[in-house]
């Protein structure tokens, strides 16, 4: 149960991070009207987006590698 929770949490946080970075942390979307459209709203926002992608796929490793809790094996 705990393993599944961790996996779903990783998937949710991964996709969430991608969405939040894309929409709110990276360079603003839209027709550029001033300098603020040239830079991300927080430095290294692209790294957060990549982290989100990595986190989603890492969830598969956690799902397979993390051992089951003991009462499941019985």
């Amino acid at each position: 149960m705990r393993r599944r929770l961790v996996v779903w949490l990783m998937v949710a946080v991964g996709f969430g991070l991608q969405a939040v970075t894309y929409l709110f942390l990276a360079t603003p979307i839209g027709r550029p009207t001033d300098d603020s459209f040239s830079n991300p709203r927080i430095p290294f926002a692209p790294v957060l987006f990549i982290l989100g992608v990595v986190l989603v796929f890492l969830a598969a490793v956690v799902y397979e590698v993390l051992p089951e809790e003991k009462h499941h094996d019985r």
Partner: protein
Amino acid sequence: MAARLERLPFGVGQAPGRWKLWIAVLTAIAILGWYGWYLEISRGMIVTGLRDIGPMGGATWGMDVSFIVYFVGVSFAGITVAALVRLAEVKALRPIARMAEVLTVVALVLAAFAIMYDLGHPLRGIVNLFKYARPQSPFFGTFTLVISGYLFASLVYLYLGGRADAARCAEVPSRLQGFYRLWAAGYRDTPAALERHNRASFWLAIAIVPLLVVAHSTLGFVFGLQVGRPGWYSALQAPSFVLLAGVSGIGMLILVAAVVRRTVPGSDRLNEVVFRWLGNALMILLLAYLYFMVVELLTSIYTGAERERAVTEALLGGRYAPVYWSAVALLVIPLSLLLMRYFRRATGLATLVASGVMVNLSAMAKRFLIVVPSQTHGTLLPYQAGSYAPTWVEWAEMAGLIAFGALLLAVFAKLFPIMPVEGGES
């Protein structure tokens, strides 16, 4: 429960003299390529044939960028085949699933190297990418989805798919036992573990398929969305990239599978059925790609604007004609061979291998023709037509990368079963 192995399968852990010689040759070529990169970093881009577009009559993207696109294209086949095996349950392709996954990983690593070669200041490029990149840009999509996301997903797929075999190899006393234990990470060959693996890899495959289509399309958009660049700006650019990626990737997979069948002991499962699947897939993709080529050509010569036509004329009868027509021939000849093979139900492996070689040479040429002529002949400003000829440094870099890729594949085949172990696969 799968039978216990008595020794490591497929010649893993053994290094015959011929293999060592092969490794030495590949290492020498790879070092020559890295020497070329060293020259590029220490003396600047002047050692390459790259020059500014327009006033200097050159191209700023040349061999490096052509090969980035080529390598990313080759990576397409691997993970597609692996996903097909899982999602469509194409059991015939199971023996090549792992080598396809390794091919994907290796091709993406080579693409990352080619990107580094193209940057005058690689370190600055990486830092600035992470610091300032715009996620809305196709360039960023190429870096995040192709290089990081796609590569990471492929590594995860390869790692999880290999755990069962790693666990079986870890039972065999060898110098690689520790490595296999690490890879297996406590895997036990139980129905519960198998079910968990099947579920995880199914969802992983589901996630990877759209990712790879988006990733390859994004690479096409890098060119296809440039409105001021005749020859690039086209709605067909992204789907053409995906198709040519399939052609070169399946062609390369045929070559790798043929080499494995010839050199790896116990690879009998790479039989006629496997190669027929690959041959048919290549034939269909070739047909579709040639259709796209004809449509694109007709559009640009029938109603194309002046500069659009200038690029097409340079391809059809100008400076790039020898490369263009060679590329076309290297697509048409294999298609004819594959069609004959299909209708006669012939079984010759040589035809397939020849087709694999030809389509890959053609894909390299086509990537070059996509990247370069638009820069030398497609500028909208009133400049004279330019030219670009790669120097020996660029040739050495690319030969070095191809050798490095072959080296990685050869070493992997001696460290880990290149095919799923019979009886141990899920």
